[in-house]
């Protein structure tokens, strides 16, 4: 589905991402981990079109998409969430997610879209389903601005889901959630995999990463230092040295 080859991004003299390659299969959850500044978010930005790669290529089902603007990549079925949560807060949760449904369809230049359609039942149903999938259905009519930080992250996933993506890039979806919420969101992410959505997951909570991911790619200084199943990664000496060794005891 998603294939990236030799992806690089150079900021001045800094190689933020240095020849990263990975393949993401259908219905796979791939963890992307590494210490702070190892290039995880930059990789996400390169794949989703928020940044232009300096070299390398990104293919979606065989179509080369590197250099495409992010809205085109999103229309092709790859949608990301942001590390610093972004959600629409001016309306209700349902309205916020409905924008996700609308985003996936229609062009600005079609005058038919300049005429109000009133309460669009189809769009609301699709939005409600997306909320349901992330467990927010009971709050559908609450103002999105009142939602606590952790749940805003969940809402941002629901908004992305509403576009019916095939591939989701989740940037620290569990940050700011307490233990029970983490468990619940993890279960829901597993359900997304069961529904056939491929997920690239950047996350610092190692327990959840180990539980959720089918395979894990570890970055350090912009390079892939290891790739494998959670068990293999847990044993990998270089990974332990670079990342897990320090992190294991201070698992937040």
């Amino acid at each position, binding site marked *: 589905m998603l294939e990236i080859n030799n992806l690089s991004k150079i900021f001045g003299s800094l190689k933020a991402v240095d020849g990263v390659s990975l393949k993401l299969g259908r219905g796979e959850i791939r963890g992307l981990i590494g210490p702070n500044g190892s290039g995880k978010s930059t990789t996400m930005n390169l794949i989703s079109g928020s940044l232009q790669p300096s070299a390398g290529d990104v293919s979606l089902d065989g179509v080369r998409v590197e250099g495409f603007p992010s809205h085109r990549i999103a229309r092709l079925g790859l*949608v990301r969430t942001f590390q610093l949560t*972004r959600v629409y807060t*001016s309306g209700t949760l349902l309205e916020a997610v409905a924008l996700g449904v609308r985003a996936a369809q229609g062009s600005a230049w079609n005058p038919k879209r300049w005429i109000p359609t009133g309460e669009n039942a189809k769009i609301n149903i699709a939005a409600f389903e997306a909320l349901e999938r992330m467990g927010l259905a009971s709050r559908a009519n609450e103002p999105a601005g009142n939602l606590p930080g952790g749940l805003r992250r969940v809402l941002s996933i629901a908004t992305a889901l509403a576009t019916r993506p095939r591939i989701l890039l989740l940037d620290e979806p569990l940050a700011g959630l307490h233990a029970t919420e983490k468990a619940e969101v993890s279960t829901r992410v597993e359900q997304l995999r069961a529904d056939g959505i491929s997920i690239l997951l950047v996350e610092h909570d190692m327990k959840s990463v180990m539980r959720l991911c089918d395979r894990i790619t570890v970055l350090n200084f912009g390079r892939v230092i290891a790739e494998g199943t959670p068990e293999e990664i847990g044993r990998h000496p270089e990974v332990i040295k670079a990342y897990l060794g320090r992190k294991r005891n201070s698992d937040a």
Partner: protein
Amino acid sequence: MSAFRRDLMTVCALGAALVVGGFVGSNYMLGVLVLFGMTSILVLSYRTITTMGGWSFAHIAIMGIGGYSVAILSKPPFGLPVLVATVAGGLFAALFAALLSYPVLRTRQYYFFLSTFAAGEALRQCFIQFREITGGTSGIAFIERPEILPNPSSTLEFLCLVAAVLVLLGIFYASLDASDAGLKIKAVGEDEALSSSIGIDAWALRALAFILGSFGAGIAGGLFATYNGIVSPSDINAMLMFKVVAACVIGGTTRFSGPILGLLFLTLIEEIFRVVPEFVPMIWGVFVIIAILFGQWARGRLMVWRAKNA
């Protein structure tokens, strides 16, 4: 009541109020109402632009395109009917906005208003410099009133025309605001990165808001030109631009009633201080500052109040 219906009510009520006011008011009042109606078109079209998250400072210069189009197209060798020329003026303004949107809509925030300001100023200079076409600093005079009015010299009839145009454009902008495109425009205004990430072509929607908003400015410019009988670079003045922006700041841009009430407020001040017109900009400025400071305070109180009553 839905926001769409409320906006429709606002423009219809305003149109009706203009006509009724015109029938009962004095001659002086009639002139004020005509100006108010035409400025309302400017303010409502400007509001459409602000919903995409950018406050343009080229609106009045783009209005000038409408004015000059009417002046040029209604005279020989074109000799188009004034109303047709006015519509053409709106289309030219929209076309200019489309060309402008390519460079200008790549900028954000203060870069956006600086670049629109520069573009507007450049356009004003063009009106001054291309003398053969625009008449230079003295502009183009002897523009006729629309021929379809039974008595073109009657201000009351012209007021009715302005009210009709206002209502038509108001309905157009209200539909746009409530439409799929309008919702996306506001989404882009709220968070452009998020909107792009879920598949909304942010640039196209910002451009759409800018182009359709500029269409209204062109129409208003045409009406100003045919009402004044003359169009000149001095029509494109900072005062009018400031009035439009101030109306949107004071009234807020969430719903149509906001900018209209803001404009009403500014017009009232203008009329109250008519004997000392040199003080009007200063008083407007003071109220803009009060609106910004008090507006935040009032929104804060409102949120507290709503939270308590939720």
